[in-house]
């Protein structure tokens, strides 16, 4: 339609002012703004840490400890953000981490890795994770099995398989180079933390700045509308689970690096931890809305919480009760603040 046949809207100038204002607030606050509640909760938690544990909390080493703890589950949570934003769910992440870790530490793999390069271990874990994710994705997207059930089945199957492969033994990694690489630091920051940061940043870009991310929102928000808009919803869904599978494979590598082992017990209850971090971060379980920044905050809140508890020598059961209360408070806070900021 050519410009001149257009009926000019009378209040266009107002719009532009609005747009400008929105532009600024978007710059300032896309992370901090929408996540004020989470930021406040995290800050309060840190304050609690400083007040109760003083320098022991506010110490660089301690911060790095928190970040290292956050790294593994953080990588899984970033992947989970995509799946949930796309309207799905994955209960099998922990089992996939276990299976990948076991497969990547089998004697066969270690043999090849030792005779060629340790990167073989990494690729094995990624390949196993990606393949598991692909199976999930195909079952869900093309087999039309409800995600909850499909991944529950994978959870059972992958853990069982991991146990069979490892014969229920913890497999110790004995590949030179691998440990050396992952134990290193970059400018004082441990490699694991660097990996988490890179994954989070890449996840943010992928979700917010690419066609893939935009389609993820569409598929999660209204799959029928997305389909009629020309998006291949099934392929996209399968891709999302594969992406998460890859994240699980990477998490397995990180866990191997941390523990020097592969084991069928690795990644226990990661599904709950990851989903909790994602949801507390503000991603809608029903799909269509998701934020990587929120997920990162969610992971940090949970890990900081357990760090503060560790520092304070609280009774273990009281910790559980407090944890429940803190989760609820964080969410209520987030809601109140989000509502006030008018979004």
């Amino acid at each position, binding site marked *: *339609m*050519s*410009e001149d*046949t*257009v*009926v*000019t*809207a009378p*209040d*266009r100038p*107002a*719009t532009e002012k*609005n*747009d400008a204002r*929105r532009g600024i607030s978007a710059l300032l606050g896309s992370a901090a703004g929408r996540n004020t509640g989470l930021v406040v909760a995290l800050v309060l938690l840190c304050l609690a840490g400083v007040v109760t544990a003083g320098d022991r909390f506010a110490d660089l080493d301690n911060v790095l400890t928190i970040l290292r703890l956050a790294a593994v589950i953080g990588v899984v949570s970033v992947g989970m953000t995509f799946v949930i934003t796309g309207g799905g769910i994955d209960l099998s992440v922990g089992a996939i981490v276990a299976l990948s870790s076991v497969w990547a530490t089998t004697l066969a793999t270690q043999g090849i890795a030792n005779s060629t390069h340790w990167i073989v271990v990494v690729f094995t874990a990624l390949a196993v994770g990606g393949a598991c994710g692909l199976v999930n994705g195909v079952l869900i997207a093309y087999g039309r099995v409800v995600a909850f059930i499909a991944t529950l089945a994978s959870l059972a199957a992958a853990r069982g398989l991991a146990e069979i492969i490892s014969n229920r033994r913890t497999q110790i990694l004995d590949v030179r180079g691998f440990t050396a690489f992952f134990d290193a630091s970059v400018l004082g920051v441990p490699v694991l933390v660097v990996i988490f940061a890179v994954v989070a940043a890449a996840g943010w*870009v992928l979700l917010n*700045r*690419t*066609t*893939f991310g*935009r*389609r993820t*929102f*569409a598929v999660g*928000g*209204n799959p*029928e*509308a*997305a*389909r*009629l*808009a*020309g*998006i*291949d919803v099934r392929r996209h869904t399968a891709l999302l689970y594969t992406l998460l599978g890859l994240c699980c494979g990477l998490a397995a590598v990180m866990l191997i690096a941390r523990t020097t082992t592969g084991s069928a017990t690795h990644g226990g209850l990661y599904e709950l931890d990851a989903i909790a971090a994602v949801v507390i971060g503000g991603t809608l379980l029903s799909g*269509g*809305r998701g934020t990587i920044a929120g997920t990162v905050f969610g992971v940090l809140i949970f890990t900081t919480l357990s760090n503060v508890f560790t520092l304070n020598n609280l009774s273990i059961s009281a910790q559980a009760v407090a944890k429940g209360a803190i989760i609820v408070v964080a969410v209520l806070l987030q809601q109140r603040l989000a509502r006030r900021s*008018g979004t």
Partner: protein
Amino acid sequence: MAQRLLAHGGLNGELAGAWSRARVLVDGSGRMTVAAPLLEVRGLVKRFPGVVALQGVDFDVRAGEVHCLLGQNGAGKSTLIKVLSGAHRPDEGEIRWQGEIAEFGNPTAAMRSGVAAMYQELDLVAGLSVADNVFLGHELSTMGFTRRAEARRRTRALLDRLGHRDIPPDRDVGRLSVAHQQVVSMARALSLDSKLLIMDEPSAVLDPDEVRVLFGVIRELTAQGVAVVYISHRMAEIREIGDRVTVLKDGRTVAAGLPAREVRTSELIGLMTGRVLENVFPQRVPVAQEAAEVLVVRGLAADGGFSGVDLTVRAGEVVGLAGLVGSGRSEILETVYGARKATDGTVEVDGRRLRRGSVGAAVRAGMGLCPEERKSQGLLLDQAVYRNITVSSLSSFARFGFLDDRAERTRSNRLTEALDVRPPGVDRVVRGLSGGNQQKVVLARWLLRECRVLLLDEPTRGVDVGARSEIYELIRDLAARGVAVVVVSSDVEEVLGLADRVLVVREGQVVHSGPADEIDESRVLDLVMEGHAA
């Protein structure tokens, strides 16, 4: 004239006039009393984050009348309805019910007082049966146990009264066509035995016959003293059924209680839009004989729906599909588009045959579809306007998969301004837009893609007169630029006025195909009805 009414000073005077014209009754003793209106609303204000939907609405309804509400998309009609039925709380203003100040804090309170509403977005629960939906919230029960046989029987009776013996009370509402859902929604409103019945665009999905049945029911009700508030964008309906008209513009009452039969259409349109519309349908541009056949459909069939559909659309041609609700037009469109799997037949765009059952292939070949149910099929309701517009053209904004966000907004903004989407702003969430404006957003999506073939399923449903003529112009404009357009509409006048060629569909078969100017409305209706025992 418009200036006179629009002037704020004049508004109060106008209202005072309406007030004094309130019905004068003669009671038994011969003394004259002024009956208070059944419902009276003053200075109603309702704000949503970022939008003031109502900014001072005055309005009154008398027992036994049909009061029509008129206004452009986004004028605030639906919001007003929701305030009256207790679904929204007003921020300011007062509501008087039978002369008393009333607080309809929630839908139950309103229902108890005798207000029943049929909402524009169908307020039904898919997964529950028709009977369950009709009595939802006021279930027939003994000590908490539902009386199912009784509910079924009464539902049956209500549906019969609405002329729909073909809707089984046990059927899952989600499996009914939109039109039938509308009927169920009506049955639901009737089941409440109310004093005031509010209908928000009930006729949008009905065909002419069903509208006639609806009007019969409305007359029956008003004869019993029930007041009806009726919203529609169709002027002819307002003339036929309305007693008085109130016009809203930008959340304000610009004229209250005009006599529905006397007031001139141009005056109403002037009140609504603030401008004068000449003729509704734009001039046809004859399609060149040698224009390329862009869309060629041969022998298309789908299970249980339709069969043997042939359809050829040339560049620059607008083809209209007329037919009764449920005749299979939407199914044909969706099958052509690849959204349903065809069992037989071929679809070609620009001479290339499309893969069956693949929307992606259709879109890549240059097809676009504005689906019938824009909320569930067309829109990402909780996402920004611009994202809804660019969702089908993402790759054209992307470089190596990375999106140019600013270009998206700029291009979308240009389109929403061209289409006059209100309120403006491409970062607004689509859910907050009124129905007509949501439709424009879906249209904008395909305008942006500059597609070769545009399939429009009921493109003007719920769209106001002003916007409607804009959409017509838009369609014509597109055609002039060589787009092949297929329009499905239940409004025969619209099909005839807009299309170059008309196909009449009955029970999944194309029963007529020919130039639009060689057929008239009554002939189309005959074709459509043929075989029905009339």
